[in-house]
């Protein structure tokens, strides 16, 4: 009965219902887009940055403190049995022994360029750097021994192309000068300008020869099926790890990016709250008008025996109807926008150049859980905005209302 009255009232006062529906729809539309943007950024960090750096990183004790120097010591010995053991757990997707090092690249044109090198097994390189493998514009990605891949800017500066040899100069683990001359297998175009100019990927054997680190690496990164399995995996692994190895989780390695993400989340939440409060104030007024206009009606209903709770329910149900319709409209309008920008990420170009760890292309991401949250929020706003006018109406005594009509 109450449901029916509320529904009829919503239809009768269609202009007001429409206004509330409009406000809810606009708020939900904006919330969905804002949330889609944040989900996209979060996904970017969690999938790309975390996958590339590994969910778990094993380094020799003391290495992490000097990581900024890209030291060659302390390092770790690797063996097939160790790698097999690390990969023997069901949650492990890939085990990637690697060496990070600084180097001077020299081309046949006698141009030199300071670069950051990563030596890695070609078999896992494509999986690890899917982003760069897909961005190869010339040649192929790392696929064998004695190979390097570099960015387009590095290739331009060094005046080299695919197939040519590049001299890599560095100090080896004994501080002696050392050089190797691998072949350029491919050239990628990274959307991170610094990476495009300074990142060099080579096969692990080449790095070990250059740095005089046979069978040794500076880190082993482990990629899991899902990031939430990290702690569980570490629990199982820890008893078997030698004392000189320090495990570092992605939460420790990506702490600053995660902090930035949290900061953006808070900023977005504050802005969303402001938008919602302003929208809710408009809605409260609309409901209040509606209630004031129908006070005689409510007075009569109360006089013939309707309870306060029932009266509140009628007004709140009206809010609920408007909320449902507005939320659905807002989501119908917002989700395609999110899906479009998920498929067509925005390139922020130079605006993102100073952010390390992510490139400049950031898309939105559609996550059903987020859409459900937005839906719930839309309903809460509409219902919440109707609550005050409903309580106001229910507190009026029927005698007072009917007397004022006389």
């Amino acid at each position, binding site marked *: 009965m109450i449901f029916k009255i509320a529904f009829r009232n919503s239809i009768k006062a269609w*202009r*007001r219902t429409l*206004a509330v529906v*409009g*406000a809810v729809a*606009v708020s939900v539309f*904006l919330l969905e887009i804002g949330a889609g943007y944040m989900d996209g950024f979060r996904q970017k960090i969690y999938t790309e940055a975390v996958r590339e750096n590994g969910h778990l990183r094993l380094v020799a004790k003391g290495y992490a403190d*000097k990581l*900024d*120097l*890209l*030291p060659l010591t302390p390092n770790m010995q690797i063996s097939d049995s160790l790698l097999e053991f690390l990969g023997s757990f069901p949650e492990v997707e890939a085990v990637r022994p690697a060496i990070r090092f*600084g180097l*001077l690249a020299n081309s046949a044109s*006698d*141009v*030199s*360029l*300071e670069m950051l090198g990563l030596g890695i097994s070609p078999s896992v390189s494509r999986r690890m750097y899917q982003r760069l493998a897909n961005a190869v514009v010339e040649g192929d990605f790392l696929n064998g021994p004695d190979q390097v891949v570099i960015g387009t*800017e590095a290739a331009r*500066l*060094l005046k080299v192309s695919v197939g040519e040899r590049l001299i890599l100069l560095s*100090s080896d683990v004994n*501080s002696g000068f050392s050089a190797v001359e691998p072949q350029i297998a491919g050239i990628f175009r990274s959307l991170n300008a610094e990476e495009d*100019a*300074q990142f060099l990927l080579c096969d692990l054997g080449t790095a070990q020869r250059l740095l005089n680190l046979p069978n040794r690496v500076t880190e082993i990164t482990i990629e899991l099926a899902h990031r939430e399995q990290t702690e569980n995996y570490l629990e199982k692994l820890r008893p078997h790890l030698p004392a000189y190895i320090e495990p570092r989780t992605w939460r420790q390695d990506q*702490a*600053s*990016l995660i*902090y*930035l993400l949290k*900061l953006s989340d808070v900023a977005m939440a504050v*802005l969303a709250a*402001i*938008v919602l*409060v*302003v*929208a809710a*104030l*408009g*809605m*409260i*007024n*609309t409901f*209040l*008008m*509606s209630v004031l*206009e129908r006070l005689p009606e409510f007075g009569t209903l109360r006089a013939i025996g309707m309870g306060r709770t029932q009266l509140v329910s009628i007004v709140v149900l009206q809010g609920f109807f408007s909320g449902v319709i507005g939320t659905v409209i807002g989501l119908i309008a917002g989700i395609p926008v999110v899906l479009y920008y998920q498929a067509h990420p925005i390139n*922020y*170009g*130079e*605006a*993102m*150049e*100073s*952010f*390390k*760890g992510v490139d400049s292309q950031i898309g939105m991401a559609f996550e059903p859980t987020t859409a459900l949250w937005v839906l719930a929020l839309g309903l809460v706003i509409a219902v919440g905005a109707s609550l005050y006018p409903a309580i*106001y109406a229910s507190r009026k005594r029927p005698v007072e209302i009917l007397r004022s009509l006389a």
Partner: protein
Amino acid sequence: MNFVLFRLAVRNVLKQKRRTFFNVLALGINTAMIILLLGILRGSYWLMIERTIDLRTGHIQVHAEGYEAEKRRLPLDIAIHDASRLARRIEELPEVKAASPRIRAAATLSNGRYRAPVLVMAVEPDAEAQVGVIQNSVVEGEWLDSLQSGIIVGKKAVDLLDARLGESLLLYGRTSQEANNLIDVPVRGVFSTGFSEMDRMVVFVPLQFGWEFFDMPGEATEIVIRLNRTLGASKVVSRVKDILAKSTDQKLHVASWQYFAKDVVEGAKADLIFYAILFVILVSLAVFGITNTMTVSVFERVPEIGALRALGMERQSVHRMLLLEGFVLGLGGIVAGSILGGLLAWWMNTKGISISTEALEQVAIPMGDKFLAASRFVDWIIGGGLAMISALIGVLWPARRAARVPVTAALARGVR
């Protein structure tokens, strides 16, 4: 008549206390947010720009033609000849505070145990002291002296290398002719700017030392110019070009800080668009709320409006009275918003929000460790102006509708 209308409008607005409260609250929150956000925008970006100019770019930079395209490899073979003389010529311009020739080169610093890749800045100590802020950031030891060799190292690099003041470090680099060079240099000072990348990567040596070490006598890879004021840097660029054209035959490239700090400028532009959209949304929602309540209010007051019209009030006056109601609502919003925004702005101007230094390491832009606002009176004018515009737009349609109410129908509705 206008005063009577204004009194009527004020009375109508005050009569509907609840309605007015919610409208004024919505307008007030909007005004406060706009005041606060404008202050934060100015504060954070102005600070970022100032620090970028101080630590990275200066106001204007001069390079040899072709350097920009190759800058990522820090080329020493594309240099400005007779750089010190040109810097002194530039300093003759009244807008210029100082001009400092620099050699910017890649090198490696080592204490035998660890090696750190560094960016060497060979500078004229006196000119650099006026162009940058490094000399004020020296926390241990002292700033460079042209007559003494030595190196100024960032705090983070010192910590990473476990080095100490006075200790000799090995500096390895390559000359402009691509020959290797290695030399012992004592740590003369340690600086700390709070800009993590700089404190880890950059070292300073005297220009004289740079000329010998990199085999570039009299040359520099850049001349960095500090102006007396930041505004108008682009205009001084042409004057610098003129004076350089008269002083040398070499082709040089001159540009202002906006060119070299594109990441900061583009980032600021992207954020400005975001904030502009947010302001439009806030204004639209306020307009929606006011239009909605005023429409209902007009509908409710049809008999009253009919009576006023029957007593001789013209359509135009009814229209004006409703607009004045919007004006009164706008005024209320401005007062509420100015007080709320003032309190928030005061807090953000004085206390601010601290940012974790960990997060700053991820951003290669010199930012402060706090988000501080820099509010100006104009923020109140913009915030208040937008509140008034929202209120007036909000009553526009209901006012037009009220003015069109037919007198007889309106009076008939009033009969019970």
